[in-house]
């Protein structure tokens, strides 16, 4: 354990409550955790230039345009829409490529759906749109939403109490979500789905008090989740496969250097899957070829890191052959589905769980399970984790990385995980709480984008910043 506990290199996730929340009249309640990730080394590609005062191509709201939507409609590629502090009761639609929409101050530029409007900002098929430095709350669907785009970026966004997702990215490729926050949604605080390869990065995200911390259905391929915090959700990080949407299976998601803890929260809004997955930290549900390394995961009623099947009883297509796992999302959309006779069992396969630090995960710190497949045929491996309990027992001896798994490595049935019982557990789980009224800690005051009033507009690149994954170490606890 000692070996693995070292400070995060470069990007430090600590003492942030003092920095981001302290000394303000809206200081957190005692149970409100520190919520922001402070960094002095934001990736260079993410940081707008600060040396050019914005003049031309800047559309000010409300000075020049009374509403955000009017400014967006007037904008041309390359423009910056700069929003002054205030509350805006708008559902903004964006269909112009390569514009930047930015709040001057994250916590006081508030888009409020008033439980009536659907999405705070929805980017519909417009490429290269960057959303920066603002808050979206009380929307019936999502706080911030990109769909059908190539190139997206969300920086310093706060999504609070929205009816589906906090930050939602669907059928989109090439993007980054950084320094952002999602709380109070029945689905996920942050979601990236239906993309392969996604070429997407989630960095310095804090997701709490949601049904799921992270969800990603049928996403993957350079899909990187790092340096983030997933806590106090029903379940933490839950990528999954399923034929109810396209581009299955979920594969090649890289989850490194995150803090994942206390995901047993009983009083959140929750979709059914969140209730099913409740009490798990990182749960790959039918995902394949994922990499889960150097995360710190603690205090879960079920598993810390679990690789489990996703049972789909009403499928829309048959299971893809392993040879088709590398088919791009674009190509897979051209294939016609073949309706299977019965249910599908999406097994978690070929996933690497290495060098994580786990404690106090009551069913097992690390676990692999199926609902009929022989575990040694699934190719999942476990190595170098700091842990106390596993399911089956002696999992690192049974399923080491780097060599083919063997039925004869030991007793695969001793202490094995019976995920079928989780189906029954749903009946006694605390029911979903209405998202409009579910308890939340006081809204945290979060770090704003530096020089937001003057930084030049940089539309989103379709190439996310490259993260030195090897440099990431297991983060220290922050609570």
């Amino acid at each position, binding site marked *: 354990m000692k070996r693995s506990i070292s400070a995060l290199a470069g990007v430090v996730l600590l003492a942030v409550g003092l920095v981001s929340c302290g000394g303000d009249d809206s200081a957190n309640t005692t149970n409100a955790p520190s919520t922001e990730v402070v960094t002095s080394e934001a990736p260079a590609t993410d940081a707008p230039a600060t040396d050019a005062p914005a003049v031309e191509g800047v559309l000010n709201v409300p000075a020049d345009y009374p509403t955000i939507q009017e400014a967006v409609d007037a904008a041309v590629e390359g423009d910056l829409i700069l929003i002054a502090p205030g509350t805006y009761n708008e559902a903004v639609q964006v269909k112009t490529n390569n514009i930047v929409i930015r709040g001057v101050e994250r916590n006081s530029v508030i888009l409020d759906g008033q439980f009536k409007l659907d999405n705070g900002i929805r980017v519909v098929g417009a490429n290269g749109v960057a959303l920066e430095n603002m808050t979206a709350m009380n929307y019936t669907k999502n706080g911030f939403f990109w769909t059908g785009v190539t190139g997206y970026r969300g920086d310093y966004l706060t999504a609070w109490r929205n009816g589906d997702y906090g930050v939602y990215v669907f059928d989109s490729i090439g993007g980054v979500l950084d320094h952002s926050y999602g709380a109070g949604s029945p689905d996920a605080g942050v979601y990236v789905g*239906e993309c392969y390869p996604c070429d997407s990065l989630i960095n310095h995200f804090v997701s709490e008090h949601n049904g799921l911390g992270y969800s990603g259905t049928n996403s993957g391929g350079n899909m990187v989740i790092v340096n983030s915090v997933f806590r106090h959700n029903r379940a933490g990080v839950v990528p999954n496969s399923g034929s109810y949407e396209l581009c299955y299976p979920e594969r090649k998601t890289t989850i490194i250097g995150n803090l994942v803890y206390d995901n047993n929260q009983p009083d959140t809004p929750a979709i*059914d899957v969140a209730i099913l997955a409740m009490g798990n930290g990182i749960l790959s549900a039918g995902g394949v070829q994922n990499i889960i390394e150097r995360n710190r995961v603690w205090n879960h009623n079920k598993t810390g890191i679990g690789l489990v099947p996703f049972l789909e009883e009403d499928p829309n297509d048959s299971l893809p052959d392993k040879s088709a796992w590398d088919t791009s999302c674009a190509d897979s959309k051209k294939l016609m589905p073949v*309706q299977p006779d019965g249910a599908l069992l999406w097994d978690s396969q070929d996933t690497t769980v290495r060098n994580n630090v786990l404690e106090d995960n009551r069913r097992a710190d690390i676990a692999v399970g199926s609902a009929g497949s022989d575990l040694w045929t699934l190719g999942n491996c476990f190595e170098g984790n700091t842990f106390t309990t596993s399911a089956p027992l002696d999992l690192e001896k049974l399923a080491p990385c780097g060599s083919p798994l063997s039925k004869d490595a030991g007793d695969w049935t001793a202490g094995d995980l019976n995920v079928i019982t989780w189906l029954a557990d749903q009946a006694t789980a605390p029911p979903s709480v209405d998202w409009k009224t579910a308890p939340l800690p006081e809204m945290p005051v979060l770090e704003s984008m530096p020089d937001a009033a003057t930084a030049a507009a940089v539309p989103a690149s379709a190439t996310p910043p490259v993260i030195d994954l090897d440099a990431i170490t297991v983060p220290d606890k922050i609570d």
Partner: protein
Amino acid sequence: MTRRTKSLLLAGSLFLFGSCASDSQNTQTHDHSMMPVDAASVMGQPDQPVTGPQGRVGQFVVECPFSHALPDDPIVYPGDAGASHLHVFFGNVTSNADATLDSLLGQGTTCEQQQDTASYWAPALLDNGQLIEPVKSVAYYRAGVGVDPTTVVAFPPGLLMIAGDAMATEAQPTSVVAWSCGSGGMRDELPPSCPEDRGLRIDITFPDCWDGKNLDVDGHRTHMHYSSNGKCPSSHPVSVPQLIFSVAYPVHGDASQLQLASGGLITGHADFINSWDQEKLEEEVALCIGRDIVCGVTSGRISG
């Protein structure tokens, strides 16, 4: 892209204008005896079942919990409260026998999309004569199969339409009325026995071609038609969204003894009055269907 969208909106508003101008002349008095027994003979039917994973084609989706049940039918028996078999209503909370576009606009809705103040209704599902309160409805708005999505315009305000046949004497095509469990790809003529974790559901596909003139007609059918091979007939030249309306019931196990209030289990049908916030509807049609973008999916959720 932007230009195309604007012209679409313009086209939509032209149709809107045209239909409003002719509203009073073309909204006929209602006569139940005019209802065709064989709806397919006047409206055609969809080319093929619309199944498969979501996310392939542009769409928007509206989920609306159950609102209320009344023996009313604002289309077939307007102004005649209690004249109809029992219906379950979704969306607009004020809908009843007296519902009109004007009465519905701006009223409350059960839909999570609060600007969808349209009225949707379907026959009640009964167990020994007792109402089975549905969980919710899901309305999928897409281009019809093979239809050029850039040609699709919003329903005109006040459009009335019916899909499926309340007087069917034999099983209807599953491309129009289909039963299933949950949101998967099965489409059966009669309700299957559904497992504990996936409730019974009925899917009804509305026609997606409009005659461009009438908000309603005698018999409530012939102003609408289904597209075929991706085209609308010259008699019904206006492509509108293909509305697939699903009702989810908390029914598991053998459903063969249940009844629809309209008769047997083969009499599935649904009705729709377009009393959306029209500007929002036009925006959703242009952005999501017109640009072929997936603006939302249902994620296999049981509860709203």
